[in-house]
């Protein structure tokens, strides 16, 4: 590509390493980026322990830079504060969560080669946070589906399919039971589908989708769905390719995009042991490089990852190896 004036300037990228293995994984990414001489500058933000709100500087930084990478901020179960991850997506209106489910060379899976994309509505649905106790022992939780958000995500999915030369979009729903809510979602998908006659459109009930996914995952291409089903389907995808730490993902809004490992887990159980697999988060950072128009750096890093994995000598624990996070990182750097 022809160099444009200003192409060589350093880009600022906001970083939230997050909890669990977040620090270790970010260390790995930053040393690989440094070795590859990628022209980005990290603006790193730690979340204070026990924070119940997102520090406003983080939101400001993301608004200013327009792009970031993050790990998972742990959310206490049951009592305690609401998810800061959800707050971040809502405050920046990062309406689309994309998970690219694909196999990698050298990592054995049960199902052979897979390559599909899960596009998940990221701001409403079951994650509305509106709950109340009607009377002792009876609790209600609201699922909210809006036409605006449904149209927006459906549009994103079809546009993604179109631009990435994908053939089919599958809308996942449970409209036989949630007739109004999921019905509204399907209506939006059908409307948008009409504008993309070259892309095949199909609808599938969520339970059947999950059954098909573990039996015939090859039949999927681009999938679009409300929030909770996306959480389920994206994680089945991660399981199919052999580890939660393989697939990259991103949260995209109109002006800001924040990239992270596709299956969003803090992995607190393996924190500080130097055994975490940085692949998913690293490939998410590679996605980020493509997003900010640095494709040659992206290709170079991705190539190095694939070479290391296909040689099969240096692999982390989760994919059947014995290498530490730092050994794996060094191997990638050596292949740059």
């Amino acid at each position: 590509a022809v160099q444009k004036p200003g192409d060589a300037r350093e880009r600022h990228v906001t970083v939230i390493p997050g909890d669990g293995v977040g620090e270790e994984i970010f260390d790995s990414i930053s040393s690989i980026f440094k070795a590859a001489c990628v022209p980005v500058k990290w603006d790193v933000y730690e979340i204070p322990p026990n924070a119940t709100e997102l520090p406003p500087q983080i939101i400001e930084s993301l608004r200013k830079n327009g792009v970031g990478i993050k790990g998972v901020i742990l959310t206490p179960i049951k009592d305690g504060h609401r998810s800061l991850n959800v707050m971040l997506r809502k405050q920046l209106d990062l309406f689309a969560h994309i998970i690219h489910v694909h196999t990698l060379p050298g990592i054995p899976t049960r199902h052979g080669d897979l390559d599909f994309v899960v596009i998940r509505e990221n701001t409403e649905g079951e994650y509305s946070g509106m709950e109340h106790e009607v009377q002792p022992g009876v609790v209600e939780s609201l699922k909210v589906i809006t036409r605006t958000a449904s149209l927006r995500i459906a549009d994103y999915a079809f546009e993604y399919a179109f631009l990435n030369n994908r053939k089919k979009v599958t809308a996942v729903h449970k409209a036989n039971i949630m007739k109004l809510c999921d019905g509204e979602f399907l209506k939006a998908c059908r409307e948008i589908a009409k504008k993309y006659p070259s892309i095949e459109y199909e609808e599938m009930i969520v339970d059947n989708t999950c059954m098909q996914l573990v039996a015939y995952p090859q039949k999927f291409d681009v999938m679009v769905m409300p929030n909770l089903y996306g959480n389920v389907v994206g994680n089945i995808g991660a399981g199919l390719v052999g580890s939660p730490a393989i697939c990259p993902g991103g949260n995209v809004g109109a002006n800001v995009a924040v990239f992270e490992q596709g299956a969003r887990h803090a992995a607190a159980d393996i924190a500080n042991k130097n055994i975490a697999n940085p692949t998913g988060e690293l490939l998410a950072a590679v996605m980020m490089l493509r997003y900010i128009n640095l494709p040659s750096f992206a290709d170079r890093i991705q190539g190095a990852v694939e070479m290391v994995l296909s040689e099969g000598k240096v692999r982390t624990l989760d994919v059947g190896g014995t290498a530490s996070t730092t050994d794996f990182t060094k191997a990638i750097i050596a292949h740059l």
Partner: protein
Amino acid sequence: SQAVRPFSATSGTQTVTLFPGDGIGPEIAKSVQDIFKAAGVPIDWEIHTVSTKAVDKSGRLISQEAIDSVIRNKVGLKGPLATPIGKGHQSLNLTLRKALKLYANVRPCLSIPGFKTKYDDVDLVICRENTEGEYSGLEHEVVPGVVEALKVITKDASTRICQYAFEYAKDNGRKKVTVVHKANIMKMSDGLFLQCARDIAPGYPALEYEEILLDVAVMQLARDPHAYDVMVMPNLYGDIISDLCAGLIGGLGLTPSGNIGEDASVFEAVHGTAPDIAGKGLANPTALLLSSVMMLRHMKLTDFADRIERAALTTIANPTTRTKDLGGSASTSEFTNAICRALA
């Protein structure tokens, strides 16, 4: 409230209501009857048909007489049913669920030797809350383009299903109960479900107890399903995970299921009526047979259950006696006879 009639293998012959159903239903029901006879199971069948036309003003497809029969016998076995298309019919499942207060849907998923899938040696049980949650049916449009659905979780229903899961695990020699939830996001509703499980767990010190987030559970199941044993969860998650697990072992055609209720329990094959092969002697009775095995365990006729299950699995493991859908060439009756021989 009604006293539950005690079951015991020595209390003589018991009566079970049988709905053979439509399509291949009568053929596979006959197969189960033949196998029960060969095994000498002390059961008498009371056979009821289900109509394809409404039998009363509310659009029910099942007569009060048939419902009374299940309530009287406490146990029913049901083949597949064709639900007529069109408005005004209450689906049979819904009718039975309401009439019999079927609060738990239980689906064991056991790998069938001889039917190779991508996952070997799967052996787990899903207990799904069957009456509330996301299936409340309470939805409304707030303003045009904004729709809300209510998920309802109650302490009573959650306690009942969790209690059932632990009892099931204890009775069936299982080691671990895993509760699946999303209480990091739905803090109050799934939080209540989780609390009910936590309250019950200490009563079963011999069983390992574990809590897991829905997303981690499905990831783990797709990766390696051996991490789990008995799983219990609210309605929607149960719907999703039970189908996912059916996918692990080869689809709905092989999975049995039971609906456990306050007034009675109904065991059924989850597959459809297979109109394309009905009446041709090609149907595979395995799903209904394994449902009847579950039923026997529920009735505490464990020895018969074990014997029939073993005979069925060894018969399937032999390629010469498999039915067509499993890659063999045996007819329904040849398959059935092979199981009867294996019982001896």
